[in-house]
């Protein structure tokens, strides 16, 4: 019985997380479109609902009911699997991300995370990087030249930035002394406890890596529409297509911004001015700011060439992270 209870609890929690994430991702599209619109002095979605508030739902309906074209000569199995392969790992990262402190409501203890592993950060990274197989296989399975180039570009970019990202995280981990995301947050107390003050280099590298990993400008080479039509998802349509941007642009960006908040901005730490939900509100507030910053960058900058991106990763970002690790280690050792 106990076993069933545990399983049931986990399933319910996961379902809540997944559905919540779906809705959230859908509304993140609205956020992005409104933000992009206003940056370009236009109002963005306007007609569906009040100021386009129902637009994501209309979009979801449209994408789901669209004709699902599968071209001839594609590798059918991989073609279907690729979009799932991109989407599922991205959403699995949620399993290890804590969104706030434990709270007790009506006698029940609510944990705002699915599991708290002591290697949570590494797992998050590992799952995040698995989703690139979706992109690569989508490119390969489409049996077409543009998706192929797009997939290979993504792979080349990711190999570079995965390494830089991993090394950038070492600084905060060394300062916190743990891989557990919860413990990292607990290590940053107070306004000046946030690791951003001590790890600016790591933070910049991390920002670049998020942009590269989620395929946003200046690193959106895998779907550079002027060069590759739409890159790796050129041959996709319907919901199979919809899952790619949902996974890459919204869920992955959201989750990686959450990790950025946890690692550099003190997670849910903040003055308890919002009552029992204070920690959640702080966390989401910080997350929103980071997410908006990424959008802001996306809608401002032009795009690098793919060889320049890898060059940047290996020649600038990686050495910077090494310097950062060295300096951090030095200071940690001196301070004890």
């Amino acid at each position, binding site marked *: 019985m106990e076993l069933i209870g545990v399983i049931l609890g986990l399933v319910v929690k996961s379902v809540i997380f997944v559905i919540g994430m779906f809705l959230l991702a859908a509304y993140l599209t609205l956020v992005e479109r409104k*933000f992009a*619109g*206003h*940056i*370009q*002095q*236009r*109002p963005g979605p*306007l007609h569906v609902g009040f100021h386009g508030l129902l637009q994501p739902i209309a979009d979801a309906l449209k994408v789901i009911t669209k004709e699902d074209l599968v071209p001839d000569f594609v590798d059918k199995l991989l073609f279907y699997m690729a979009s799932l392969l991109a989407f599922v790992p991205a959403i699995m990262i949620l399993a290890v991300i804590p969104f706030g402190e434990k709270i007790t409501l009506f006698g029940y203890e609510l944990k705002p995370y699915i599991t708290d592993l002591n290697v949570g950060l590494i797992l998050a990274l590992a799952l995040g990087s698995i989703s690139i197989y979706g992109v690569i296989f989508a490119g390969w399975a489409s049996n077409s030249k543009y998706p192929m180039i797009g997939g290979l570009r993504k792979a080349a970019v990711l190999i570079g930035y995965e390494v830089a990202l991993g090394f950038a995280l070492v600084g905060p981990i060394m300062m916190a002394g743990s891989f557990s995301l919860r413990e990292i947050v607990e290590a940053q107390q107070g306004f000046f406890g946030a690791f951003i003050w001590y790890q600016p280099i790591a933070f910049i590298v991390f920002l670049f890596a998020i942009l590269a990993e989620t395929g946003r400008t200046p690193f959106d080479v895998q779907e550079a529409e002027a060069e590759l039509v739409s890159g790796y998802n050129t041959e996709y349509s319907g919901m199979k297509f919809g899952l790619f941007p949902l996974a890459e642009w919204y869920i992955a960006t959201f989750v990686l911004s959450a990790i950025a908040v946890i690692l550099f901005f003190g997670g849910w730490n903040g003055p308890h001015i919002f009552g029992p939900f204070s920690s959640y509100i702080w966390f989401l507030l910080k997350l929103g700011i980071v997410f908006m910053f990424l959008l*802001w*960058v996306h*809608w*401002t*900058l032009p795009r690098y060439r793919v060889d320049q991106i890898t060059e940047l990763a290996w020649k600038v970002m990686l050495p910077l992270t090494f310097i950062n690790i060295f300096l951090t280690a030095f200071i940690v050792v001196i301070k004890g």
Partner: protein
Amino acid sequence: MVKVRYVERPTLSTVEKIFFIDFVYGLKTTIRNFFRKTITTIYPKEKLVPPKRFRGTHAHRAKDGNEPPSFVVLAKFMEIHDYESRCVACYMCQQACPMPTLFKIEAEQLPNGKKRVTTFDMNLLNCLYCGLCVDACPVDCIIMTDEFENAGERRNQCVIHKDDMTERGISFDRRRGNEPDRIWIDDKAREKLWGQIEWT
């Protein structure tokens, strides 16, 4: 006088490189635009009034008492009632048109010796909207109106005929006949993009 000058190629200094000054300026510009007012005309709800010179769907002016002197001369040979198209079947519009086949003009000789226009069809699918027919009309009959929403699902829906052209002409003159030859009507919708213009 014309002068020749070499442009200078700006480069980034080291300080600008390290502190991402170029990105910061760019980001500053975009966020400043974020807080500006939007300029979009929300099309089906708001519509800009096209300028009076706008070259939209063709129309025929009707015989309404404001005809030019040339019409008075030519109308002697024509059987035209009041509030009917002024067309005198001179075929000048067809002559002036770079794509003459889009016109189909037919006239018949009445027993009283006068001419009467029976057909005046224009296939707007072939139209260049260049306005040469308007320039060619000696009796101020064919004009171009401010109507532009004239999409159709079938080819023959894009053919306009004499009667609906006359109707359109009357309505255009009623709406905008007295308007001065101005660059555009100053309205709220245009202010969104333009701001306040100082008119002299």
